[in-house]
């Protein structure tokens, strides 16, 4: 799961910073990776397709700041599935 999340994040973040190589758990998704609203929407859609869950129908995405928060939200959703 985490590999998938990191891969999608990297792909989206590299649109804004082609030099970006590493995604770290503590990075803030919007402020540090530079994702804009449309990127966030695409992230959630692609992860729903690849992981089969959308945690944000039951957990507010506004509570997710970091990469680690994001992984935790998907972990909870997958466990509940």
């Amino acid at each position: 799961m985490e590999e998938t999340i990191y891969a999608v994040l990297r792909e989206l973040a590299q649109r804004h910073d082609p030099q970006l190589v590493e995604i770290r758990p503590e990075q803030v998704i919007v402020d540090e990776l530079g994702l804009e609203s449309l990127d966030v929407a695409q992230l959630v859609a692609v992860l729903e397709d690849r992981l089969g869950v959308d945690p944000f129908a039951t957990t507010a995405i506004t509570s997710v700041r970091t990469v680690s928060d994001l992984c935790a939200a998907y972990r909870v959703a997958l466990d509940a599935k």
Partner: protein
Amino acid sequence: MLIEPVELTLAHVGLGELREVPLLALFASAQAHALVAGTEHTLRDVTDAAGAKLYPGYSWLHLRVPPSRRLGQFQVWDRVEVGVDVKRFGGMVLDSTYVLGAAGELSTMTADWPLDALPSMRAMSMWIVDGAPGDPQPSSPQRGAIAELPSLSNPPDAMKRFRTMRATGSFDREPRPWSTTKPVRYQLHMGRDVARDHNLMFATYVEIMEVATEAVLRGVVWPAIPAALLEHRMLLEREVFFLSHTKGGEQVLVDVRAKLTPCAENFHGDAKDMVSAGILDIVFELYEEGTSSLLAIAHARELFLVPRKRAGLVADLARFLPSS
């Protein structure tokens, strides 16, 4: 998919004919109903999992009006149908198709909607937290808040175009003979243009573009286009990318570049009582003055369609055509 029967009332068209802004409102209202169809909710009740109110904010729209079914043919007390088909990409992005027809004209099969023969629109919108400060904050409706929508497995084409347009900031930079040398200013008044505690509604951007277009045709062009010609314009298409938000109290600055090109006299179709006199191509960039944020970029095409009994106006417009 939803087909909504509507009677065009004074609230839609006044005493006259359907225009672009009320049509956009009709389309958006039909979408609002489609989004909550089968639930006990209205669109105003849609919240995310934290209880924040959400609304579908447009990122892109592309309205097209065939000259053979111009908006002016839809008039007060006409019974019409508004069709809307909404799909989702993930929980946040909506991809919509809209169409306007006469009563009984729309098929219940969306694939059969004649989008090239009727006023129609494609749009992409995103669920946004209402009233959140700063940049638009996307979120997902909480489970059960909205209707079950068919899902797209690939991003809407508009998503890629949105990124490209955001990066370029304009439809084109082509010099055009009718261009603003300084932007047209539009003061946003609370209540008149913007609801308190809300962002400027998408359709109001169109009103501002219309004001800016008239300012160019009546002010930048010299000699100015005769005022009588302005009322004989019909929209062929308008495409808008909404890049940022603004609120009441702000000033919107609009850069406009326009050109007029000739067209066939019967461009509009077979109606012999009208003459197609020229096509106006316009590009717009809208900025918020206080922050210099680029709010929206757009292009529009309009047809000068003049009643044959006012043929003198055709000659008036011909003076402005490049070949004359």
